[in-house]
């Protein structure tokens, strides 16, 4: 009997621990560097991995650079090229951070929560701090999250004539949305 109780306790504990980490392989990251004179430099990556640890409040996402889909082939080539993201050498964007005000969220109760997420975004092996507001909607244990922030391309060593000429935004907007289960 004791063994059965011990076993059931272990199973429950293991299940509970596992449930703390919510993940998805279908988060979406939108990259929008369009400007008033060029609407083309924007793309979407729909197969981004993301995770939220509801216990510790850690947040992470990882995007394959080559999976950003642009409408225009030439812009996509430039985006992946040596002078820009150099995706052959640096194949991923990564973000690792945490929910700064985790106590504001009750993951056991359906509702919409606005939180502050802080962390480090790594692009081309350059890591810079990012802090942004994020929305977490809890629905039956599923988390629907969205966050938007801007990055300075120059911070990541990305410069060039199209940026100086105003055809590519110096500070593109990054929008991350994910449904985590």
């Amino acid at each position, binding site marked *: 009997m004791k063994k059965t109780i011990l076993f059931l306790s272990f199973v429950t504990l293991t299940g509970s621990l596992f449930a703390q980490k919510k*993940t*998805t*392989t*279908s*988060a*979406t990251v939108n990259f929008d560097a369009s400007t008033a004179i060029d609407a*083309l430099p924007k793309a979407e*990556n*729909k*197969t981004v*991995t*993301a*995770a939220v640890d509801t216990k510790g409040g850690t947040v*992470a*996402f*990882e995007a*394959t650079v*080559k*999976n*950003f*889909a642009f*409408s*225009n*082939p*030439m812009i996509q080539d430039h985006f992946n090229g040596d002078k820009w993201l150099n995706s052959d050498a640096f*194949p*991923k964007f*990564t973000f690792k951070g945490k929910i700064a005000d985790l106590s504001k969220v009750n993951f056991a109760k359906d509702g919409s929560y606005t939180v502050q997420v802080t962390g480090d975004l790594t692009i081309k092996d350059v890591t810079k701090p990012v802090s942004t507001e994020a929305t977490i909607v809890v629905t039956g244990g599923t988390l*629907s999250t969205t966050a938007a922030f801007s990055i300075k391309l120059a911070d990541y060593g990305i410069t060039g004539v199209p940026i100086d000429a105003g055809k590519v935004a110096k500070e593109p907007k990054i929008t991350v*949305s*994910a*449904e985590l289960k």
Partner: protein
Amino acid sequence: MLKRILLGGLALVLVGAGIYWYIATDTFSDTKDRKPAFTVEVIDFIREFQQNDSLANLKYREKIITVNGMVSDLESPDTATVNVKMTDTTSGNFAIFAFQDQHVEEAKSLKIGDKVSIKGSCSGGSLDGILEVIKIDFKRSALNK
């Protein structure tokens, strides 16, 4: 003489504008109409990345690939998105296909366990730092049949 120079200049401007217009309005063609560089069975394909992802990336990345296999999962975080997964159940490594806009409706008709043939633009694969399994990404995918 001046007239010739002006006409020549005008012709150059028109040619330049035409080239710019062509490049600026160019879009990716329908993947369904593209000829694949390779046709593979998903388990063999995933295991090539497992054995040597550098070689596999050199071989497949940025090419149109037709992948045959079984749907292991469907992920639809919003109405405009259906991602199809094919997984090697022995390792947990998987390929994931994001569909081209005009083919999302086709993906919605799929069910877990369906045997499918999907053609897409391979973005490469490597160990995912979050899930700690190999993930191979595809964009602009379409059902092959």
